[in-house]
């Protein structure tokens, strides 16, 4: 019997043959933390170890509230800078660099065959590069600082085959909303989710990141794609270290296989307050919106800017609606600037702010008031996620967001192109 990707990566780290359900103690290749590093460093000090196990395995990115919105966030950042200096951590990215899940791939830390953990649930994103990547808690990251190690359960593998050819303008976000709407918010619970099939092969690396980013939204431990020529081209000149591609054996045991044909997929929207409350845009069009958020680690990369700017060129955000734009990273911002996309969005009346998480977890830069409604390209629509429990969050693709910003209501872009 062959081995799955997850069994191979965890088995290699554990130094033995492993099977699903087994718990192993392993040393991750990369451990990512962000603004929560201040709290983690305090827990690390409670453990009573003076120096961290291996500074080179840690990557720290400030992104959750950048620049600091108030004194408490400022103190938090200050504490992290002091910890980074004290421990000699080389891979530190301050408030000017972008969202961690975009920065790690851009900087060549997300590599095939790697075991990566992050004290952030969307650390699953790195699976788009063939890494086994998952989220962990703050205390667990403090222990990795102290010992380098963590316990992980070897997951069963769920294979999702995406067949057919995506209709023009339908994006990987629509594909992921379709998968989660059908399989439900716990459909991938504890699983290693393998995205494959012809429609995945045709997707750009950035589009694939949408699927692995949101894998956690239906409970997955990790989501991944097997690296192909596109992946390797992205990594060329970027990878921080040599790597070996790891793939599942053809006869490896899978827990389940699900097939989706996306040839006739419609634009989709996840309605409040759950990511699996998915409806075709035609069912909710006309719903008035107070704000559009084009940002987040899910959908704010250069290909998304190209689409949004293409729709909004020469047009205006509807007067009854605001639009907040946050590029996923400074690299994305600079490229969008060079290509004229920022100019277009600025002229359209969008509010463009520094790369980071912004309002996506209720910290700043676009918090909602009671009774307000946002249409967002982000990944999570739980009640209160945008800082106010009496507001509503709808999730969609960048194209649906752009078309709706122009009308001030949820709109089917196919009627406006």
């Amino acid at each position, binding site marked *: 019997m062959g081995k799955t990707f997850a069994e191979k990566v965890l088995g290699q780290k554990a130094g033995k043959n492993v099977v699903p359900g087994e*718990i192993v103690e392993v040393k991750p290749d990369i451990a990512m933390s962000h*603004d*929560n590093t*201040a*709290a983690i460093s305090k*827990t690390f000090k*409670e*453990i*009573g*170890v003076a120096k961290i196990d291996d500074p080179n395995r840690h990557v720290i990115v400030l992104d*959750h*509230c950048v620049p600091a919105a108030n004194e*408490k*966030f400022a103190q*938090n950042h200050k504490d992290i800078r002091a910890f980074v200096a004290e421990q000699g951590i080389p891979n530190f990215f301050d408030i000017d660099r972008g969202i961690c899940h975009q920065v790690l791939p851009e900087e060549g830390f997300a590599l095939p065959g790697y075991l990566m953990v*992050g*004290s*952030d*649930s969307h*650390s699953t994103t790195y699976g788009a590069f063939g890494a086994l990547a998952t*989220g*962990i*808690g*703050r*205390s*667990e990251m*403090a*222990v990795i600082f*102290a*010992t380098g190690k963590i*316990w992980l*359960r070897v997951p069963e593998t769920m294979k999702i085959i995406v067949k057919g050819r995506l209709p023009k303008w339908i994006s990987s976000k629509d594909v992921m909303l379709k998968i989660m709407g059908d399989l439900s*918010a*716990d459909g991938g*619970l*504890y699983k290693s989710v393998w995205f494959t099939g012809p429609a995945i092969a045709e997707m750009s690396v950035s589009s694939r990141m949408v699927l692995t980013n949101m894998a956690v939204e239906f*409970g997955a*431990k990790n989501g991944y794609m097997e690296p192909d020529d596109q992946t390797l081209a992205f990594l060329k000149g970027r990878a921080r270290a040599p790597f070996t591609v790891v793939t599942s054996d053809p006869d490896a045991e899978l827990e389940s296989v699900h097939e989706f044909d996306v040839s006739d997929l419609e634009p989709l929207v996840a309605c409040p307050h*759950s990511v699996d409350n998915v409806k075709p845009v035609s069912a909710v069009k006309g719903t008035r919106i107070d704000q559009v958020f084009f940002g987040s680690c899910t959908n704010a990369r250069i290909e998304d800017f190209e689409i949004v700017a293409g729709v909004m060129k020469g047009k205006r955000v509807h007067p009854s609606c605001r639009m907040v734009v946050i590029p996923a990273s400074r690299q994305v911002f600079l490229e969008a600037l060079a290509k004229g996309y920022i100019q277009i969005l600025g002229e359209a009346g969008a509010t463009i702010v520094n790369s980071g998480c912004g309002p996506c*977890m*209720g*910290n700043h830069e676009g*918090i909602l008031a009671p009774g307000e409604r946002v249409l967002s390209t982000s990944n*999570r629509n*739980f*009640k*209160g*996620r945008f*800082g106010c*429990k009496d507001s509503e969050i709808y999730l969609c693709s960048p194209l649906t967001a752009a078309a709706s910003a122009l009308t001030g209501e949820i709109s089917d872009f196919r009627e406006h192109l």
Partner: protein
Amino acid sequence: MAKIVGRVWKYGDDVNTDVIFPGKYTYTVTDPAEMARIAMEDLDADFAKNVQPDDIVVAGKNFGCGSSREQAAFCLKYAGVGAVVARSFSRLYFRNCINAGLPALTLPESADIFVAGERIEIDLSAGTIQCQAGLFHFPPLPEAVIGIFNDGGLIPHTRKALGIDS
């Protein structure tokens, strides 16, 4: 291991970390008493005001889905909650409970068998829950992680493993 006797706070499926411990507090609220006051803020405004030591939170599937924030486990512990029983847990929430030393018990019959407000008894050693509907059995925690739980959580466990605490 001790018995836990407390009143039931009953909730539904897919209770997420944002309603247990809102994201806007994750970098500004660290004091345990203050965390306890925020517990369940966007789910049940009465919870933090009325919860008593050893009360038990019961829920349906996928409890604690969403964020990795461990404050969503710690805030219940600081509020005095004795255990969380659910049909299933998100993997991050389950880990965070173990690491906080808060019993997270998986019971396929949850939450249907429970009545809000009823007093139930959990026997961690026997793996049983006694409630009005009868006696129910839950599977033990995995062997490999029970040591973390028995040591009171991941940080005390790590100190012990490193020989810092004997």
